[in-house]
């Protein structure tokens, strides 16, 4: 018998249909993947099960958990289920914990609430649970506060909260999306172990087909609130009967065509980074002793040639972004020199930097956060034009914006819209338009596609490739996602604890990593081909 049975579930919020006749079942000990792009209703399905839907949400159909009709259950009944029989883990570990309570209090709280255990007993159980999720007492006493933990450690605490009472069902909503690949692999391993230990059912929600394939026995593919395809993971993905399934699978493995391959050593380097280090003031341990500095970037050297695409990969916190900020002259190195087109840019004034800034632009990760919501597109995209020697007239300016928009696949009519009128993918096109309007020689792209859905992501990667081919722009991609590196770069630089530990041709580094850090990254990176093959093998 199913542990969770969803039949004919429809949901609307304030009259807007969100889910249409969704069917889903999970048996004890089974891992079911729920895959879909943003807005497909994945999270709303989870919140329906938890009965934590926003106001004005109306659900119809049947959701049965362990014989209880959840849609008809009272709030008291739901409170008894939540955190006891059904646990939930969320996407964003950085904000999922209460900043003013210790991790011990937060794990013990649910235990005390549901079992009426005393403080000492609950803390004892919380301690055991934290040990179980890989937070041993010696380094992580109960008295730690969330801000003292990293993202991966916080996610472990959230999992400890959700699994403290050995729930029959765990709902994990994008549990690893905010983490780097190595942490992701660790968290997925932990979830897998918890499933087999307690015969727990796991509903794993993700936009990442590779992650779900590695984890789930069965999967359900959701699009715009409707189930497209559901079934055995290996069969569904190897046969790809439904066109949308095929589309998703293709998009997640997409490699853009770049017919003109870059030939190394063909030109003078565009960017030279020589022995660059960056120290940050560390935490002061005593009032009277100066703080030990933290070395975020440690003696890094690299070169990028014109039209070359390089990927800087590494785990979160390895110093990638700090290095990028120094290359963009947004931060000053503690030591070393950075030369752009042969000219040193370190220690120059803003006025002297103008020509370099013109030829060096940036695309950020978050297409939502990087635009002022109160300005129109023509102003936003034209922003870098102040770097030009002669300021274009208004008409000319609009023409340049229209041209840049055209190059990224948007129309001239989009000029008079506001950022909120665009989808996530379109917004990332806007940031690319803004980056290329001054005809730069180098674009630094910091995780440019990690906030995007797979199909959009494929399109944006195509766009990057096209601009590289057409305009000869060199790229420095900063990413923890090896598929992006593989798809887009000629050369890969692996960064670890502030140092470049390995560099080489992309295929060489990713197929035969030599350094420990690169090997760890490659081993942890989810790969759809590999995951399907493994599943097929397991099932014979």
């Amino acid at each position: 018998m199913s542990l969770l049975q969803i039949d004919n579930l429809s949901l609307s919020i304030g009259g807007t249909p969100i889910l249409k006749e969704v069917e889903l079942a999970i048996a004890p000990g089974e891992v079911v993947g729920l895959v879909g792009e943003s807005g497909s209703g994945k999270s709303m399905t989870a919140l329906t099960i938890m009965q934590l839907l926003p106001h004005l949400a109306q659900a119809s159909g049947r959701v049965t958990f362990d014989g209880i009709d959840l849609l008809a259950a009272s709030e008291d009944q739901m409170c008894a289920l939540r955190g006891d029989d059904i646990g939930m883990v969320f996407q964003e570990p950085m904000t999922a914990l209460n900043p003013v309570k210790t991790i011990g209090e937060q794990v013990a709280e649910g235990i005390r609430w549901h079992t009426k255990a005393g403080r000492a007993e609950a803390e004892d159980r919380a301690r055991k649970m934290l040990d179980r999720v890989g937070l041993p007492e010696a380094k992580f006493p109960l008295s730690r506060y969330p801000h003292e933990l990293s993202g991966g450690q916080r996610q472990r605490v959230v999992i400890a909260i959700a699994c403290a009472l050995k729930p029959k069902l765990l709902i994990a909503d994008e549990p690893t999306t905010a983490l780097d690949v190595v942490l992701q692999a660790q968290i997925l391993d932990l979830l897998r172990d918890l499933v087999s230990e307690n015969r727990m059912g796991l509903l794993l929600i993700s936009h990442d087909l590779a992650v779900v394939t590695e984890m789930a026995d069965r999967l359900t593919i959701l699009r715009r609130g409707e189930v497209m395809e559901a079934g055995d993971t290996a069969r569904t993905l190897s046969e790809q009967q439904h066109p949308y399934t095929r589309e998703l699978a293709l998009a997640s493995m997409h490699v853009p065509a770049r017919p003109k391959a870059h030939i190394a050593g063909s030109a003078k380097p565009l960017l030279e980074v020589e022995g660059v280090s960056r120290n940050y003031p560390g935490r002061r341990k005593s009032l009277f002793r100066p703080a030990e500095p933290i070395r975020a970037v440690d003696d890094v050297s690299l070169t990028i040639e014109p039209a070359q695409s390089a990927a800087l990969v590494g785990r979160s916190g390895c110093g990638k972004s700090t290095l990028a900020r120094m290359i963009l002259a947004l931060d000053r190195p503690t030591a070393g020199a950075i030369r752009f087109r042969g000219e040193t840019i370190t220690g120059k004034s803003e006025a002297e930097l103008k020509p370099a800034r013109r030829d060096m632009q940036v695309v950020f990760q978050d297409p939502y956060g990087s635009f002022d919501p109160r300005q129109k597109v023509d102003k936003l995209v034209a922003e870098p034009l102040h770097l030009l020697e002669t300021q274009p007239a208004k008409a000319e300016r609009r023409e340049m914006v229209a041209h840049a928009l055209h190059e990224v696949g948007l129309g001239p009519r989009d000029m008079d819209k506001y950022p909120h009128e665009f989808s996530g993918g379109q917004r990332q096109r806007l940031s690319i338009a803004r980056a290329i309007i001054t005809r730069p020689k180098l674009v630094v792209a910091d995780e440019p596609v990690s906030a995007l859905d797979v199909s959009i992501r494929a399109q944006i990667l195509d766009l990057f490739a096209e601009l590289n081919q057409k305009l000869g722009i060199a790229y420095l991609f900063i990413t923890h996602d090896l598929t992006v590196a593989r798809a887009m770069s000629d050369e890969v630089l692996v960064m670890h604890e502030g140092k470049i530990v390995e560099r080489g041709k992309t295929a060489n580094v990713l197929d035969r990593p030599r350094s420990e850090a690169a090997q760890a990254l490659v081993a942890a990176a989810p790969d759809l081909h590999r995951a399907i093959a493994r599943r097929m093998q397991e099932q014979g």
Partner: protein
Amino acid sequence: MTTYLFKRLIIAAITLVLASMVVFAVMEILPGDPARLMLGFNASADQVEELRNQMGLNAPLLLRYLHWAGGLLSLDFGRSYTYSVPVIDLVRERVVVSLPLALIALALSTVIAIPVGVFSAGRQGRAGDTFAMGAAQFGVAVPNFWFALMLIYLFAVWLRLVPAGGFPGWGAGIWPAVKSLLLPAVALALPQAAILARVARSALIEVLNEDYIRTARAKGLPYRAVLWRHALRNAMIPVLTILGLQFAFLLAGTIIIENVFYLPGLGRLVFQAITQRDLIVVESVVMLLVAAVIAVNLLVDFYYAVVDPRLRGRQ
């Protein structure tokens, strides 16, 4: 944590010194010669000059500041020009009226505002919230002296529950004294409570939308428990900031309210001192109020460190 507190303490001390300089400078700039005022307009120039020498008014500016500031530290505020008694005696008499008044008002506004804020945040956009926030809007808009007059009319003139004004002194017993402070405290507190309720509401709404509230709900805690255990403590941080700032307004507000209710407090003292050009009294009382506000805000800073563990590690 000690580093944080130590830093706050130093900053508070520096603020106090700077404020004393500003107060002293303003009093220097103000027209009117205290010696001339004390002696009246019939006094000869020689007499005035002699008194100026006696009062130390002819000494260099820096010396006079140091003398004055040094006096403040040892609670020697000098002598009032008009009453010819030590300022500290005047202040001591009045502070026992003003301080309880401000504290009662502060307590009242907190006790009113936080439940209203919690109520409204829980019913965001619904009738109860709209009504409560409408009332708060009204409370912000109405000047407190008008409000005070209405209170007098209703409770003192019509219902005859409390006196319309005056203060019997603490010697008359605690209840009569408190009773005569009740209306002024309410008049002072309500506009502040209205502002505070709005702040509490928006702070709570923001906190209730945080991810960790969802985590707490997913643990199985009912709404009420989530509110008390997780939301309120986080929402208190902005509420306390405003409360600290409001204390300054409460103290300033006493100047009007004490006049309306005819209370012999610091507000009235400073008001009379200004009209009589009794600058030394004005200086001293203003410095006292400044010190009180800085002290309250220092307490708020300390409270942050108690509530927010992230501040404790900070330098």
